[in-house]
């Protein structure tokens, strides 16, 4: 699984907003181009980012295995044709190039995930999205981070209990209904206790935000982000 890991790399030191800007710029330009020469440039950029952030390539590819399946199957489906000559290489190649850039986009975003703790991302959201929506988004993301293991363990308990009661013998619809119903009622119970706790702690629209500041190191990253964004229009 791909998660944040503390480290000393240049990418760790950047402000999360510059890193987000680079990702957006890269995604924009990668979605706009599929020419082989452009893809070569994107590959060099991706390798540089992965090296700077010291992202382990194989583990990252494994984390995105579900996406990789479609990216591998896509070109095959595109190349297959009904009737002679059965295989349309040109269409397959076009899809293969298009799939490859998606892989690069995933790898560049993996560098962000690996180098940015959730609290910094949260601060970036709350400082970038204005007003109450930004507050709710930031706090909501922090709550999801906090409660994810709790809800996962709830689900495990439910599935264990189902397995102990021969749940695997039941129909798929019945199993989905049971997981949905029990999962939801447990989760909503937690939510109701959480809302009481939030009110007891004066949950407000204007709390003091976590600290976050651009530094000189961010200038090159922001420059790269703008350059990438502009190449999308070439």
């Amino acid at each position, binding site marked *: 699984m791909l998660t944040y890991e503390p480290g000393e790399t240049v990418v760790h030191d950047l402000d999360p907003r510059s890193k987000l800007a680079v990702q957006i710029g890269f995604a924009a330009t990668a979605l706009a181009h599929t020419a082989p020469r452009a893809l070569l440039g994107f590959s060099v950029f991706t390798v540089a980012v992965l090296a700077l952030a010291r992202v382990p390539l194989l583990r990252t590819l494994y984390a*995105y295995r579900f996406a990789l399946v479609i990216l591998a199957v896509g070109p095959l489906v595109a190349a297959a044709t009904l009737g002679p000559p059965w295989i349309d290489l040109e269409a397959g190649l076009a899809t293969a190039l298009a799939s490859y850039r998606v892989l690069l986009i995933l790898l560049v975003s993996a560098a962000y995930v690996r180098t940015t703790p959730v609290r910094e991302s949260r601060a970036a959201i709350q400082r970038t999205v204005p007003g109450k929506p930004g507050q709710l988004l930031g706090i909501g993301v922090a709550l999801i981070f906090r409660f994810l293991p709790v809800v996962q363990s709830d*689900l495990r308990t439910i599935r264990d209990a189902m397995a102990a009661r021969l749940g695997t013998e039941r129909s798929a619809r019945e199993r989905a209904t049971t997981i949905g119903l029990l999962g939801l009622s447990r989760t909503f119970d*937690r939510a109701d206790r959480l809302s009481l706790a939030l009110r007891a702690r004066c*949950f407000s629209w204007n709390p*003091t935000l976590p600290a976050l500041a651009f530094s000189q190191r961010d200038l090159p990253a922001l420059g790269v982000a703008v350059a990438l964004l502009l190449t999308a229009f070439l």
Partner: protein
Amino acid sequence: MATEQGDVDLVDGDVVHAFARAALLATLLGAVAPIAIPIPFSPAPITLQVLFVFLAGLLLGPLWGTVSILLYLAAGAIGLPVFAGMAGGLGVLVGDSAGYLWSYPLAAGLIGLLVHRGTDLRDPAEVSTPLVVVALVTATVLIYGMGVGYMAWLLELELWEAITVGALPFIPGEVLKIAAAVAIVESGRIDTI
């Protein structure tokens, strides 16, 4: 760090209640992501996530249902392992399954609007079953329309190729999820916000 010095602007009790439920439903949506069964020749594995997208619209209504899914997408974007196969990252939101993911908030909002006819929620157990089914089927069409359309554009596939890869294998699973959602709502064991 600049300390906030203005008066405390408390969040209303109703909003806190709805927000807490939206945030935790988003968590649940992320927590069921690992329960994914990959199937051959198909991109997105079968997951229960769409079931909870349905339930977000049915139980939280058009406003908070949409908020809940947006929170889920934001959490995935910054790297929490909430997408299918426990993946995360901004790249997933423009990747091959991005069309499906971006359709979720719209689908939840659409279900909420059709079933509740506005932001005042009514008990979905009292709404006629055909209406609930129509809302869920419409939402499913929206999800697959956006998912397949985006995949076809992104990977430069013909439309029917994208439908073969991204929609056909899932139809039995979707019927099952609609049936489960209706059963959950009609049990009346879960109240709306």
